[in-house]
């Protein structure tokens, strides 16, 4: 392929924060859709128990990167993934890895809230049920309650668990979807623009939630809002045209960007 002859994209790495525990590590990760190169040899180490924000203009490959981590790209026929991506040192792209198992470890929240057209309870209980995480009904109910509580939704829906999940408001639906992801007890939670379909109040609620979830999970969030990235994340990765341009602690990236493109983007000169 043509890009193989190109020099590797030079990424600016800021020094890692002290005591960083690596959860997800990508090496030479490239993705092509047919002939189009979507991700070009990305190298990145993502820390555990913190929020990593992926920013960049539309089509820069940040969603593609996210979908590599739980192999959602498998569902796209034309997608080709090359290189390595490891979670806790375990190769994700390995054939021996069952994507079903992987996705139980790596939860995902999508841009538009997509609850199942079932009851609130069923939405949350579905994951534990297919993975056999609960031995009986009471355990299942307990998992549903803790997940909804962690997602900050329990108080609002406790008395209407058997109403359809689609009857909730947009912000509530997104929290329901997060509860659904938490219910299978994942290690990593991927969020693909989780607030882009929500109003500012619901967004604030989700951001709060993300901050709380940081205690227990590694979160990777794709966002178009620079302010959001600055508010919720500890690490920030800036992607441009499929390449990882700059990566480092959020404070560093926003106050002291070293690459011209990063500076232009975060100051609003393009994107």
């Amino acid at each position: 392929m043509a890009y193989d002859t190109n020099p590797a994209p030079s990424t600016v790495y800021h020094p890692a924060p002290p005591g960083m525990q690596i959860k997800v590590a990508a090496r030479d990760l490239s993705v092509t859709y047919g002939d189009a190169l979507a991700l070009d040899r990305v190298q990145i180490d993502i820390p555990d128990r913190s929020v990593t924000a992926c920013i960049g203009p539309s089509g820069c490959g940040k969603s593609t990167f996210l979908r590599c981590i739980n192999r959602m790209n498998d569902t796209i026929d034309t997608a080709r993934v090359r290189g390595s991506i490891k979670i806790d040192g375990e190769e994700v792209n390995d054939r021996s890895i069952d994507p079903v198992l992987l996705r139980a470890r790596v939860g995902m929240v999508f841009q538009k809230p997509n609850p199942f057209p079932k009851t609130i309870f069923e939405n949350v209980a579905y994951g534990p049920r297919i993975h056999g995480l609960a031995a009986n009904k009471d355990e299942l109910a307990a998992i549903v309650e803790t997940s909804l509580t962690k997602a900050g939704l329990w108080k609002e829906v406790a008395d209407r668990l058997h109403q359809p999940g689609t009857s909730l408001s947009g912000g509530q639906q997104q929290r329901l979807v997060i509860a659904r992801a938490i219910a299978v007890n994942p290690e990593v939670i991927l969020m693909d623009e989780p607030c882009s379909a929500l109003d500012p109040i619901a967004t604030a609620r989700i951001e709060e939630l993300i901050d709380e979830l940081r205690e227990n999970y590694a979160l990777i969030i794709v966002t178009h809002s620079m302010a959001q990235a600055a508010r919720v994340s500890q690490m920030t990765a800036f992607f441009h045209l499929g390449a990882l341009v700059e990566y480092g602690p959020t404070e560093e990236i926003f106050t002291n960007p070293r690459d011209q493109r990063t500076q232009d983007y975060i100051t609003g000169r393009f994107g």
Partner: protein
Amino acid sequence: MNRPASIRTAVEARLARRHRSERRFQFYGAAAICLAVAFLCLLIGSILIQSVPAMTTWRMTLEVELDRQTIDPRGDMSEASLRRGGYNAAIQNALRAQFPDVEDRAELRELFGLYSSVNAARLLNRVVQDPSLVGRTVSFTLPIDDDADLYLKGVSVRESRAPGPAPVRIERREGRAVSLASDTAVFDAYVEDVREVARERARTLEQRALRAEAALADTIDRDIRAIYEAEARRARVQAERLRERLDDGAPVVLGPQIPSLLIQVSGAVIRITEVSADRSSAQGEIVISAALDEAAHADWTLWTLETPQAGRLISDRQIAWADALRERGLTRSGFNTELFTYADSREPELAGVLGALIGSVLTMFVTMLLAVPIGVGAAIYLEEFAPKNRITSIIEVNINNLAAVPSIVFGLLGLAVFINTFGLPRSAPIVGGVVLALMTLPTVIISSRAALKAVPPSIREAALGVGASKTQAVFHHVLPLAAPGILTGSIIGLAQALGETAPLLMIGMVAFIADAPTLGLSGFTEPATVMPVQIFLWSSAAERAFEARTAAAILILLTLMVSLNAAAIYLRRRFERRW
């Protein structure tokens, strides 16, 4: 509004035209819908009107004497003996008892034409079930012959009755011949009628002769010339004969080409054979006798059957008899239950759709059992699992092509493969069902795929995102959401198969099946026919009574279709969920 004036005027100029074109388009749409609705109303209305005569049927009730000797020829009351009994003779005797005047064989045949001898089998079954009836007189109700039925319904024969204008003397001659005489020209009105009809008919005959002669002039071939010549000659001769009858001075001889005249007088019915030239006297024969004194009768009726005998399938005598049976209260009109409880028959009054309905049910059962699971399975595989490559795209294109293949081709396939190669029975619902299933498969696959495609991908992603396998995502989430669409598509496919005739013709389901197939496992291999084929068979039947029955059968089929589609809509509403 700080647009330049020129742009404003340009937009305004176009605006009027845009509004006009929009209104025009809306008008076209409304007109198209109105036209479609009008045609639909016309169609349903005409079928309804045509089917009215088949809704009811006339039945006669006869007191049939089950004489021990005729019914039980061996005298041992065994079933075998009872089955050899002369049931038809018993019915014939009961009918003869009503009209004792009838003696000569031809007339008897006419009389017995008022019912179908198939009814003897019904009487037999009744006796076999209850042998204690032997030796007793039972009242037996049987549907009257279709031509008499149509007459009694007043659809096949135009008739008029008028009171006799002046007293008439009736004089018996030898046998059943009578002569009628009056002081005034009492038959004047009738003769005028006849002359009008005869004149009209002579005119058409002459036109026919002229047409044949014109064609003759253009033809060279000898054989064809002979045909035209014969036709022209025949028409001329007939017209001439009719004109002769118009001759004022001659007596009118009643024949099959002109309206018939019957005279009703104190219970007797006289069929007029000749009216004298002065129209005051006539010759006739007694059809139904009664005590007639020699004195002049003032109270009598001129009963004109305006449809000439040549234009109807029921004779003057049969009309007189049917009318007498009605007068005596022996016939009654009722809802045509035979239409639903009998299988096909050559006798329209005993023909029903039960056999075809059962055949349709059995055939549809096989079709459903094959087409729905296979079709939905194929759709799920193609839509959700199959890799998108050259082979699947070829399969896809061919499925779409199959949906457009003329249905008769599937019939040919069924004939060649299932009947000839596999040796499955002919005319059997199992073969019909398989053939229709093949025909329905593409419809089911295409509509199921459309339904699956309509499920938003976010649902699949959500399921995969929490770690569901592909199969779990499809069966837990996608399929339930697609179910209403799949159901609708399947039911519409089945409805289409229910109305299909052509492929079934090829596999012999067009046969005349007088016994309804068993509604059970063995029924699948018995010869059967289905509703649309039954309609097709009846529509080409010669008997006029089948005309109404065809329309009635169409109504029944339409009702079935509408209820199937209603079920589809109901299921759709029931299972439809929002996402």
